[in-house]
């Protein structure tokens, strides 16, 4: 009987049904198993969070109707009343208490939510009030709690990851209910009629993982799916000419940037032009600035990225919390760059290898090649070595002696998961401090006492405006003055739907069908 219905479907899809072609399939339906983009995005259909995160990563009330700090170290969350789980039972503070306990203790989790929950003590005040206590003032509370999906204490009691994958424990409060997952083939969801927010637009949604870009596009063109994500830039121009396809694109929170060795007197991949060893020129801020000025960002955006990118002058595009209103992308000025190189004592330039991944960011290898040519124009003889991400990130983080970063000059990207400038500042530009988890991705080991002070101060300032100002100031110092990293561009993501549908592009790069509407 079901197979009969399905045959009918594949021939003429019901108007209220949606089929989605996804590039990356989630590795589990368990919302706490794997803290990674595809999983977190997908789980949003089924599960709610205390604090919602919209397409621009702005917060809105989801399962909590309000939240505020009631003293320096305590946040109060008022929970929404009258919310029903998919199985009909009522949502209360007990579910939240159960969630925070379980989310930190999922067996075999390859990346857990401890990152967002540790150091926080949750207290149930009454059936719809929760207090969260920290040792020090903690401003990022709403950001952290916007990542943790709330599960039902009743359905989740004793449930394993397998129970979520099979659907046994998969009971949420989200706009869609879970029907089935056939790994590698499809995930099927159905409308939740009793959702507390805006009702879901589709009766049934089927997600199909289609990894290859051309295959995803042809599935859309052939009408086998209605909506796809991750349209490769190369195909955007062609799809624009298709009448039956509607594209949506928008900048993401991911900046593509350069990290430069600033901690070794002799950097392993830099020599004089004749191959003899030289003192690491990247230690000199003038050289770093010269490199930034020698990058023709407009050419990279228009030629390499086919116009599908936005040139960058800081760590997050305008509109995010904590970005500086003063900073602009550096101009393309080879004359000035050459002068700075001469001032720094390198009038003849030097020799350097640019390392980058070739399967992580959009057009990453091509960007590295274009960059090498641009650097050659100011006298830096740059060669390029790219490799698969599986190899690259290990070497870039700890491939050198004593687990130090191996490369001298790296192409990388950073997506600000929290939607705030504190995320890249803390990870990329704060002094590397393994024990405190600061500068965790600072692969150039940039270190500046003033930047550290500003970042730490911002991370302890609960007042949003004051924190924003501190973060902007830290960015101006670390990027604008120090050139601790060189931003190149913000990645732009593109989705494509069949004509008549429009997707609200998300800065967090996620594909969530509640953002798809008929126009």
């Amino acid at each position: 009987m079901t197979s009969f219905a399905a045959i009918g479907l594949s021939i003429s899809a019901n108007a209220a049904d949606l089929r989605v072609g996804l590039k990356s399939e989630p590795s589990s339906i368990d919302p706490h198993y794997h803290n990674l983009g595809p999983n977190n995005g997908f789980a949003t259909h089924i599960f709610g969070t205390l604090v919602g995160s919209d397409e621009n990563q702005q917060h809105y009330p989801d399962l909590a109707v309000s939240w505020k700090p009631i003293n320096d170290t305590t946040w109060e969350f008022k929970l929404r009343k009258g919310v029903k789980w998919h199985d009909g039972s009522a949502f209360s503070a007990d579910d939240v208490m159960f969630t925070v306990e379980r989310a930190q203790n999922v067996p075999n989790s390859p990346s857990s939510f401890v990152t967002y929950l540790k150091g926080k003590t949750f207290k149930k005040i009454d059936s719809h009030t929760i207090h969260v206590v920290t040792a020090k003032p903690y401003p990022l509370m709403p950001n952290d709690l916007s990542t943790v999906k709330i599960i039902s204490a009743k359905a989740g009691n004793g449930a394993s990851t397998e129970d979520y994958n099979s659907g046994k424990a998969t009971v949420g409060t989200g706009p869609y209910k879970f029907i089935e997952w056939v790994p590698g083939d499809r995930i099927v969801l159905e409308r939740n009629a009793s959702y507390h927010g805006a009702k879901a637009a589709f009766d049934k949604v089927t997600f199909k993982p289609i990894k290859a870009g051309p295959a995803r596009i042809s599935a859309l063109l052939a009408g086998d799916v209605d909506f796809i994500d991750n349209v490769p830039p190369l195909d955007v121009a062609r799809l624009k000419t298709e009448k039956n396809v509607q594209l949506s694109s928008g900048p993401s929170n991911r900046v593509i940037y350069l990290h430069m060795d600033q901690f070794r007197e002799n950097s392993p991949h830099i020599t004089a032009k004749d191959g003899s060893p030289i003192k690491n020129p990247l230690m000199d801020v003038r050289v770093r600035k010269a490199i930034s000025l020698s990058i023709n960002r407009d050419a990279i955006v228009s030629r390499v990225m086919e116009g599908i990118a936005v040139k960058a002058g800081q760590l997050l595009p305008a509109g995010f919390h904590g970005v500086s209103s003063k900073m602009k992308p550096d101009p393309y000025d080879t004359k000035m760059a050459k002068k700075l190189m001469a001032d720094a004592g390198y009038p003849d330039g030097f020799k350097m290898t640019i390392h980058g991944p070739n399967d992580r960011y959009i057009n990453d290898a091509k960007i590295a090649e274009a960059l090498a040519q641009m650097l050659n124009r100011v006298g830096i003889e740059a060669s390029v070595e790219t490799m698969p991400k599986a190899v690259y990130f290990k070497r870039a983080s700890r491939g050198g002696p004593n687990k130090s970063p191996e490369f001298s000059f790296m192409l990388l990207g950073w997506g600000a998961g929290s939607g705030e400038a504190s995320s890249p500042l803390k990870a990329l530009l704060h002094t590397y401090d393994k024990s405190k988890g600061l500068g965790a991705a600072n692969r150039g080991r940039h270190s500046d006492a003033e930047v550290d002070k500003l970042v730490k101060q911002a991370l302890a300032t609960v007042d949003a405006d004051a924190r924003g100002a501190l973060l902007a100031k830290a960015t101006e110092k670390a990027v604008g003055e120090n050139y601790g990293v060189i931003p190149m561009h913000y990645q732009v993501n593109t989705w494509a739907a069949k004509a008549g549908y429009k997707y609200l592009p998300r800065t967090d790069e996620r594909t969530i069908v509640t953002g798809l509407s008929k126009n």
Partner: protein
Amino acid sequence: MTAFILRRSLQSIVVLFIMSLIVFVGVNLVGDPVDMLINPEADQAEIDRVIRDLGLDRPVSEQYWYFVLNAFQGDLGRSFIFGEPALKLIVQRMPATMELALVSLLMAVVFGIPLGIYAGLKPNSKFSKTIMAGSILGFSMPTFWVGIILIMFFSVHLGWLPSTGRGDVATYFGVTSSAFTLDGLSHIFLPAFNLALFKLSSVIRLARAGTREVILQDYIKFARAKGLAESRVVRIHLLKNIMIPVITIIGLEFGSLIAFSTVTETVFAWPGMGKLIIDSIYNLDRPVVVAYLMIIVVIFVMLNLIVDILYSVLDPRVRIKGVS
């Protein structure tokens, strides 16, 4: 016969052991799975926890030792990414790959043998030359590209067949397959054809070469001289004698159809083991890669055995040692 099968089984255990050692050391040389798994915002304590949980803090020799111990109990490790037993993940996806490989093998044989015999019987006809030119194309065009072209033509342009995924399944006689439903067949046609193309060309060329050789033999001349109908000469005297090389190739190629269906599965988003292995390699999901290669070795060993047994059935001159 029993002794023969026993000896073969012993040999394959040695092969499996050596293979596991090479693969295990090989996958452990490349990258660090933790970089693929962990959220970039995680701190060092969380990274250390994951490394410990996955057992990556132990030396490779120790990891291998535990792998072998568990393997004897039928446990080939747990996927880093899915957290489920690697063997379960692969077995779950095996039917999809098997049916794809079988259908494309069927296509290769059903079209390949008649076309090859025709080209061998009438080597100078226009049609034969077209067949042979076509088989060169089948050999030389990259699978990925052909797959995309097939989709663009049959799905996007003509709209006849679905472009992606596996269709509905049905169960008959305990076998669940999408080849039993109309929807399933429409989904499997393009990927199976894409996968069959290379094999089809091999079968055509083998059948043609065999035909050219056999047709000159005395017993064919004699059969014709007896006044047998040409169709009977072809069916009984020719077909039987060209089958031996064809069966060898089909047997071995069936293994490679299963093992290397990765490209076709990726293009057509076919939910089989090939797609799983490609994703696992990219994401450094070591247990799945090792388990998959183990299974492929077993499949190859078994296919070789079946081919050897089939030989003796088809050709009375071949007698397996140990049979009195």
